[in-house]
């Protein structure tokens, strides 16, 4: 009982209560404050490392992210990639299924894309190749998503750890395939696939390099919003996420929902692999997913699973990353600086959620201290 006395004796300075309601304006205000604070901290970090004044640092970041047309498009491309993975993760997370295997699902999708491009790209007409690319990538991602879902629904196997391990299985499969596909031989890289005939490359649309990616990703984003908000499936996912017991009680087949949702989630992540490989990099390596499978989890979570907010969040993160890469190269430092920046911003954003859910008040001055 000693502990009780301790707790009573030390009345905290703050009282934390859950907010019953918070206006949109206020919640976004809090997030904005968090963003500003994180930017200030980032500026100090960069300043400490480079000795540049913070104003120049941010000019450099803006220049690095959107300063030239080409840089702007790289930023847009990276945003799209991050966005589609986050969109893919949305239904799984809404269901409280901790799919942290997006990295692996994207890789498998990319691998399937590369396989189709390498084996069929040079011979078949491009339209058919692209169709096969999309089918194969979705199927590969789906396969990687359905395995943990099956065991989760059957034996309640921990999906966080299962999906995590599958990431590395996928990575090894990629290195395995690279051995057969490497070009030139001995380089241990695949190089640009079909550089000569562009077989299986996503063509330009409206004269834009990433036009098709843009259309596909935005379609998926809107589609996911509608699916989650207005369809029966979306409702079932939400119920299963809130409480599996409730779902069972109202007659929802929880196992079926888990399987179906993970097929969708994995499938979209697989498609993201196709967007990366066929739409942008035209090659495959273990870093094709490049940690975006993990960052996308955070994007989806921060956006409260609203696909439109995801556009904003992923654009902001990519903007800062691209900017940081530019700053780093300007000072001859390595580009991992961008991960540090991302990390700092994320910590602030994650922390800010607390102040949105809870209200922190000063306790009335020492009223309690004498009460005991």
């Amino acid at each position, binding site marked *: *009982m000693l*502990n*009780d006395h301790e707790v009573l004796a030390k009345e905290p300075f703050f009282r934390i209560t*859950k907010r019953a309601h918070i206006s949109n304006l206020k919640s976004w205000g809090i997030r904005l404050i968090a963003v500003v604070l994180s930017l200030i901290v980032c500026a100090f970090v960069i300043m400490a*490392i480079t000795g540049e004044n913070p104003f120049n640092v941010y000019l450099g970041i803006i220049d690095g992210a959107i300063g030239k047309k080409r840089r702007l498009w790289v930023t847009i491309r990276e945003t799209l990639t991050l966005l589609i993975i986050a969109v893919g993760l949305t239904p799984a997370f809404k269901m409280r299924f*901790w799919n*942290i295997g997006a990295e692996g699902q994207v890789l498998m999708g990319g691998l399937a894309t590369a396989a189709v491009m390498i084996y069929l790209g040079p011979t078949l007409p491009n339209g058919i190749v692209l169709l096969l690319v999309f089918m194969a990538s979705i199927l590969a991602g789906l396969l990687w998503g359905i395995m943990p879902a099956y*065991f989760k629904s059957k*034996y*309640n*196997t*921990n999906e*966080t*750890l*299962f999906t*995590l*391990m*599958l*990431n*590395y*299985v996928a*990575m*090894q*499969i990629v*290195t*395995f395939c690279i*051995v*057969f596909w490497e070009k030139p031989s001995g380089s241990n890289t695949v190089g640009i696939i079909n550089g000569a005939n562009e077989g299986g490359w996503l063509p330009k649309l409206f004269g834009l390099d990433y036009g098709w990616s843009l259309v596909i990703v935005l379609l998926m984003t809107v589609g996911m919003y509608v699916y989650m908000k207005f369809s029966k499936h979306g409702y079932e996912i939400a119920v299963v996420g809130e409480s599996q017991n409730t779902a069972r009680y109202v007659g929802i087949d929880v196992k079926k929902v888990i399987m179906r949702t993970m097929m969708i989630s994995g499938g979209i992540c697989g498609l993201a692999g196709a967007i990366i490989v066929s739409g942008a990099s035209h090659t495959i390596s273990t870093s094709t997913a490049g*940690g975006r499978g*993990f*960052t996308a*989890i*955070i994007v989806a*979570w*921060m956006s409260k699973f609203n696909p439109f907010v995801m556009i904003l969040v992923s654009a902001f993160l990519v903007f800062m990353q691209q900017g940081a890469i530019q700053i780093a190269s300007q000072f*001859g*430092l*390595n580009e*991992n*600086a*961008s*991960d*540090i920046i*991302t*990390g*700092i911003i*994320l*910590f602030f954003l*994650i*922390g800010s*959620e*607390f102040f949105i*859910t*809870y209200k922190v008040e000063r306790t009335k001055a020492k009223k309690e201290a004498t009460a005991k």
Partner: protein
Amino acid sequence: MTILMTFIQKAIGQSISILFGATGEIITEKSGNLNLGIPGIMYMGGIAGLMAAFFYERASAAPIGFIGLLLSFAATLIVSALGGLLFCFLTVTLHANQNVVGLSLTTFGIGFGNFFGGSISKLAGGVGQISVATTASAYRADIPVLSKIPVIGDLLFSYGFLTYLSIIVALVIGRFLMHTRKGLNLRSVGEDPATADAAGINVTRYKYIATTVGAAIAGLGGLYFVMEYLGGTWTNNGFGDRGWLAIALVILALWKPLNAIWGSLLFGSLFILYIYTPGLTRATQELFKMLPYVITIVVLVITSKRDKLENQPPSSLGESYYREDR
């Protein structure tokens, strides 16, 4: 015989980092915190130790290995404990989601490690790669007399002190968890924080201490890697997926540090088995490297299928506890 000997030595070299990481993660998870930031924390611990030694060796005219060792050891403990503290602050105090915080921490930590590892020498005005030979040789020093015994000396006593420390820490944590009152309290926090709270256990304090200590232990895995394994230098992403392997090992070990000791040896062996297996092509080597992960998945599925109570993850693993939300 000599091949077997080198194989065992190399396997042990691979396993120590993973063992530190797994032991740290076990004590963390026993408090109900699934700290997926461990891979990042191991990077942070490694680079912190390396930087401390680097600045010491630069500042001192005639650096003494032992002092470098102490400084880097302390730096690793402090920085990785700070990583754990940050995780705890966000998840326990600010009630944030553990997976999200953990993954952010890993992104941050790996970036932190690679950034400073790749640039610190340049930032300090030097050229070339960071190197701390004097301190590293102190880490690599084997046990004086015993290591000279033929065969047994090579097999058991030819390693730096961190190797022995990793086993001692695993043994101590194992004993702490299963045979002490505080260990019992900690496990009860991880199993059912509400009940533990009702029984008068300070859930917040247990979570904080377990996670911070766990992170510090895991950080030593990074230190081992840069000092003893690499010999006091840094290669970007050289540490690779060992952090995730450590988390996999926690599952394989069924949340028991004693199992983690032999489990880490198994993982270490699997990690390098392809070098010693005749008849492998470059491609099949890659499939061999998949084994640790596949085995972990199989263990995960089997334990969940058998559903034996003592082999399960702590029941509240990954869930935050708010007294007010009950």
